[in-house]
């Protein structure tokens, strides 16, 4: 049931909402209910935190043979981004020409369509990234 699965994650996808461990201050994204480092020490101390969406490209690849859902966007850039708050996440970088992204490029999140369940299905939205203006 794709609709319910995506709906449950809307807050983290729409607003980059993560969790911060109150015991060790490590920030997790996607959010976790338990800190894997502090374990039982973190119970009841995991606080919601809205991430800035700003980060730096740690690694990237240009996809030339993409998934069918992304066929209109080929070639597109996928990157591992280290966010200001610490977590490293995978995200698509949009509105760029091939070759424009380098390791160390500063990026910020934007709100875009992630995909859809066919022409008649629900549309999924969430974060992607653009180079910092």
């Amino acid at each position, binding site marked *: 049931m794709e609709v319910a699965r995506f709906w449950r994650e*809307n807050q983290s996808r729409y607003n980059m909402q993560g969790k911060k461990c109150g015991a060790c201050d490590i920030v997790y994204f996607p959010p976790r209910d338990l800190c894997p480092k502090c374990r039982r020490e973190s119970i009841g101390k995991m606080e919601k935190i809205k991430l800035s969406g700003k980060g730096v490209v740690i690694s990237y690849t240009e996809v030339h043979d993409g998934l069918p859902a992304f066929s209109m966007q080929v070639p597109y850039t996928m990157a591992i981004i280290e966010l200001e708050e610490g977590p490293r996440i995978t995200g698509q970088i949009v509105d760029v020409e091939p070759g424009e992204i380098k390791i160390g490029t500063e990026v910020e999140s934007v*709100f*875009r*369509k992630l995909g859809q369940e066919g022409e008649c299905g629900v549309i999924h939205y969430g974060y992607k990234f653009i180079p910092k*203006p």
Partner: protein
Amino acid sequence: MTVGIVGYGGYVPKYRITPDNIGKVWGVDGTARGKGLGIQMKSIPSPDEDVITIAVTAARKAMKGCDVCPDDIGAIYVGSESHPYAVKPSATIVSEAIGAAPDLTAADFEFACKAGTAAIQTCMGLVTSDMVKYGMAIGADTSQGAPGDPLEYSASAGGAAFLIGKDNLIAEINHTVSYTTDTPDFWRREGQMYPKHAGRFTGEPAYFKHINACSHKLFQAMGTKPDDYQHAIFHQPNGKFPLRIGKSMGFGPDQMKYGLLTPIIGNTYSGAVPLGLTNVLDHAAPGDRIFVMAYGSGAGSDGFDITVKDSIDDYRTGDWCSLDCSNQDLIYLDYANYAKFRGKIKMGGV
């Protein structure tokens, strides 16, 4: 009762196509067509952009510049004629994406190119009646133009958002008026991909008649004349109509230069006048008076008399950024890529 703009933000996708590139495909002198329409280029949404992503981007910019808690927003209205869903509101997604849900009312508006200004009027009513503290009004479109139709040279994408309230205003809305008739100059039937228009009928009995009538209502209500305004914004289906009607009323080019964006971004439909207003607010000085006249086919006009407050200088500081930032580093497309981006290429079973 004082009411006005507390925050604002605009967004235009960075992809562009020129009339020359469109004309080449259809055996038309695109450069001449563009000159005739007063359009140098038009914006194109990326394949992952639609009215909802544009509305969210504009709304987030509007919130960024002002010190308002999203929980205090009691209403969100998104005006557009290209909502991604026929049934399921764009406004609910915007509400979640700016952190305003769940304690608010939300809905989608449609009135051709003036759905965004209708949303502003509705928010003004809710705010002045104290039903809500703040209301968010958005006008956005990824407008449609059938391949080869004259509309294809102008139909573009963009949108703007305005946070309407009573406190901490950066611009006061002194008055608003409307003029509405049943005039079928432009329409799109349910399930149809592209709109139809009535050719020259869209001019005199539609655009010019309604804007003239509404403008005179506004002048009469406020006791003003064109010279009293530093800025004027008219609906801009092309680059020529607004200049023609503005000139006929006595507005000069200097009064219209910031509010007329269609020559460089195309006709953003519900986003057109709202985006013009964001660009005027980007450049206006405290005390400036703004004349705003929207038009929507079908047909009607909404007029606004606005005065910029001293606090706008504080609003436009820091890392605040409204429209200008979204118009940097443009990417120009040829017609093939434009057709791909706009879903004009049918992929069969893919």
